């Protein structure tokens, strides 16, 4: 270790501020007592309650299903949309479409939620799983478009020409060239939409009916009724899962990179012989 800079201190401070509340919350999930006032001893008690709380578990499942389904559908629609915007010839139309997309991105969730509620009640659409799914799909599409479009724009302008030149039909060009080339963008869009759907509160709050709920709405309503350490236990589990995801993602990236480096080295060794 060389010198300690003030910037290091600042970094530590920032991370403490960011992570302290979560650590605090995790710590009390192991509390034998019922409140976060003081720690009265270690216990798995709240985890037990959580696992036997069938309502909570079904809500977790609902949330995951909604997130998976909505992000999947939004990815398909959004990718097609991005392709559509890309292939629009007229600059004015293109910019118009992009702006409409961006307006949806920046408008407050509350407004989107309220407008969905008005929309659904106007149509006489019953609130519940369907309405939540539809609204999640709707707010995820612009996210996917925004993640995919730059990838398409990055493609060499003549790459599509090259595919046609080599005899590919429009369909083959799409499936063999364009889609594979933008796959990273599509995956990024999917994961982004997935996380947005998972932790959405405002929009969901407006369009859930009586019978249906997602995690964020449920936790919100429970938190209003007072502290419940079962929520801490649930949050701890979710935190660990997301931590594992991040680590897994990192390791996967490292693995791919090292494999690629090895291949280059092997090829170079062969050439240098």
């Amino acid at each position, binding site marked *: 270790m060389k010198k300690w800079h003030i910037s290091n201190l600042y970094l530590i401070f920032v991370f403490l501020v960011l992570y302290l509340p979560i650590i605090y919350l995790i710590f009390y999930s192991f509390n034998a007592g019922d409140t976060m006032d003081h720690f009265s001893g270690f216990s798995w008690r709240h985890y037990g309650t959580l696992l036997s709380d069938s309502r909570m578990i079904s809500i977790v499942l609902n949330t995951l299903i909604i997130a998976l389904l909505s992000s999947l559908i939004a990815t398909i629609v959004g990718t097609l949309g991005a392709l559509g915007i890309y292939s629009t010839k007229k600059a004015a139309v293109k910019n118009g479409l992009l702006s409409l997309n961006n307006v949806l991105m920046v408008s407050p969730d509350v407004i989107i939620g309220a407008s969905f509620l008005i929309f659904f009640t106007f149509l006489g659409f019953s609130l519940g799983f369907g309405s939540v799914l539809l609204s999640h799909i709707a707010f995820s599409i612009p996210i996917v478009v925004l993640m995919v479009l730059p990838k398409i724009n990055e*493609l*060499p*302008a*003549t*790459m599509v*020409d*090259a*595919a*046609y*030149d*080599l*005899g*590919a*039909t429009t369909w*083959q060009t799409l499936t*063999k*060239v364009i889609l*594979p*080339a933008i*796959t990273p963008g599509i995956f990024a869009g999917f994961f982004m939409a997935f996380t947005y759907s998972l932790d959405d509160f405002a929009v969901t709050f407006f369009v859930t009916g009586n019978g249906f709920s997602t995690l964020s709405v449920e936790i919100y309503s429970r938190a209003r009724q007072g502290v419940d350490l079962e929520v801490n236990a649930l949050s701890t589990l979710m935190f660990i899962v997301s931590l594992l995801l991040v680590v897994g993602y990192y390791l996967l990236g490292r693995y791919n990179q090292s494999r*690629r480096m090895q*291949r*280059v080295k092997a*090829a170079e060794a*062969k*050439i240098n012989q």
Partner: protein
Amino acid sequence: MANSVIEFRQVNKSFDETKVLDEIDFEIEAGKFYTLLGPSGCGKTTILRLIAGFADATSGDILFEGQKINELPANERQVNTVFQDYALFPHLNVFENVAFGLEIRKISKTEIKTAVNEALKLVHLSDYGNREISELSGGQQQRVAIARAIVNEPKVLLLDEPLSALDHKLRKEMQGELRDLQRRLGITFIFVTHDQEEALAMSDQIFVMNAGKILQSGSPVDIYDEPINHFVADFIGESNIVPGKMQRDYVVNFDGQDFSCVDAGMKPNEAVEVVIRPEDLDIVAVDTGQVNVTVDTQLFRGVDYQISAHDKMNNEWKINSIHKTSVGQIVGLAFEPEDIHIMRYHETEDDFDARLETYE
């Protein structure tokens, strides 16, 4: 022409209001090496895009083996392109890129393997099949692009400045190999470049272009020896261009004297431009040559000296000579009537060809 593969008839191309190609007319014969030569932005790529089918002509006909193909989609045309920006598929490795066209045509795996390996060998990338495109240098990517096109054995191969990213040595090597390849495969090559030396070295036939027009077409020797106008003379190689006046057939006046020449068919006393190539000038003792000039600069280039001088009318003369002079010295320049080439102002290629017919 019986074996014409591609023909343009009065083809025009405009983007919005700007005219990019102006009345392009040419015919391409099977099995030859053609070059489109011209400065950047003159419309070379646009011509290739029209042949390949990526763009539509604003007016005029494009024919392939006598059939009009204006409406034929790009994927049904029997031409392949080596793109200026390579346009390789980033998600496929080198082998898969080269195999793409064959896979589309549903050729058997073993045949594809043989063909691709052979194509990679042709471009000196035999051991690179497993490499990712992002792991290659610009020159290597360019060679993959060449392999990806030739592996399909098209009737016509379009090459858009395919050697521009290579270093000098590799470039010379690839020029020879492309030329060999063309002879061996018997495929018609349409090669685009802005490098006149490359065009002269490789082509059977050159089209010199400027600002959306074909100014002159012919063999490298024809174009070098008998450029049609100032632009072509200047663009193809080094040249001395001085203003003159045609006294009568076979006699031209410049630098205040009459010279005999081998050109004819102009009006008497017509103002013309006189071209003499630097390597056709010999330096001799003062007053023993046709023109006396004063040496301004002298540059040693290894093989010879590049000398710049001026005559008494202040015309500039470039001379390539193996003999040394000194700056400020007055020397004579000797040349033969055959070394003089006369250019008329604003002569069209048809008139030029017709005039040459009358006395050659």
